[in-house]
């Protein structure tokens, strides 16, 4: 019996060790990113994407996000915290991956708010109010119509003190729609399959959590 227990323990330890080693190897290979000296692809870093932080920062964090994605909303305070923590050292770039039904409309409103200089406020506002306008889960849940969502977005814009008439004109501006569609093409090219997806100097974050993201930023800062 004792020998058998030992056999099982050793077997389990070997398999667990192999699993751990494989996980570590896989994550580091995902995060290996572009080869040293190789340029970050244009699809990842569009010059007209909304940005926080110095343009010549040593480290650039690109986030692909969906305004209607719950994980993005949940992770948003972490991103805000990191923006504060690395203020002046790291540039944060915001890109869209509008996978959900009303995400594109939300992205249009965010772009429109950006034209009034309130991009980041609108982004946060949409995350905060996501329960109200976002996709509902569970039995009998009905998605909101585009009209209903737009009405809510107009209300949020008014609460932020934006010029709503001007905002509506911006929302219908094909230039903003083109930018979101361009982001979605980049999403395809970069094979972004889930949101939020982060790239730190072109290195994709393998596992979504605060420690890993911070560690990756620190690693790039230390280079």
């Amino acid at each position: 019996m004792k020998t058998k227990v030992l056999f099982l323990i050793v077997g389990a330890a070997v398999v667990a060790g192999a699993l751990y080693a494989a996980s570590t190897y896989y994550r580091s290979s995902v995060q290996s990113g572009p080869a040293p000296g190789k340029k970050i692809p244009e699809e990842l870093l569009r010059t007209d994407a909304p940005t926080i932080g110095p343009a010549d920062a040593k480290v650039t964090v690109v986030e692909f996000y969906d305004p209607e994605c719950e994980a993005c909303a949940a992770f948003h305070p972490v991103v805000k915290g990191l923006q504060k923590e690395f203020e002046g050292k790291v540039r944060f770039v915001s890109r869209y991956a509008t996978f959900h039904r009303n995400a594109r409309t939300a992205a249009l409103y965010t772009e429109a708010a950006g034209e009034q200089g309130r991009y980041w406020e609108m982004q946060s506002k949409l995350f905060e109010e996501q329960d109200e306008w976002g996709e509902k889960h569970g039995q009998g849940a009905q998605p909101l119509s585009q009209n209903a969502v737009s009405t809510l977005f107009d209300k949020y814009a008014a609460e932020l003190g934006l010029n709503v008439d001007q905002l509506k004109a911006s929302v219908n501006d094909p230039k903003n729609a083109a930018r979101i569609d361009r982001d979605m093409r980049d999403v395809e090219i970069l094979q972004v399959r889930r949101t939020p997806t982060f790239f730190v100097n072109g290195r994709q974050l393998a596992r979504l959590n605060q420690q890993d993201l911070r560690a990756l930023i620190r690693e790039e800062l230390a280079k």
Partner: protein
Amino acid sequence: METVVQEKAVTRSPVNDAIPFIVWLIALASAAGSLFFSEVMDLAPCVLCWYQRIAMYPLVLIVGLGFLTGDKSWKMYSLALVLAGLAIAAYHNLIYYGVIPESLTPCTQGVSCSERQIEWFGFVTIPLMGLASFLALSILLLAYRPNNE
């Protein structure tokens, strides 16, 4: 009396005795491997993969406990799961390699059961690994003769 001793001598072989542990190890490695694909590599399991997991995961406990306690029934319980898993794995591979057209399968939502997610060395795919595991387990279990201790 003599015949009993002889029978014992026939069934007691080191290879036979090692089978429960090997079976357990294969089941454990398969379970760990499938979790690696879904949890580490973020490859969503398709429906047929889930059915195979349902057959594979309990084996770790059933075979492990059988091995520890010497309860002979573990072979029967495991074999039932393994053969069910083998059938699903075989079906999955037929779809995956295009022998059965996918339009006839239940995998219409989520991940397609024929989507190629991994191809190591040009031929090692996830459905093939599943089939290999279940096949090895079936052969080992069918070959195993519980000792009359």
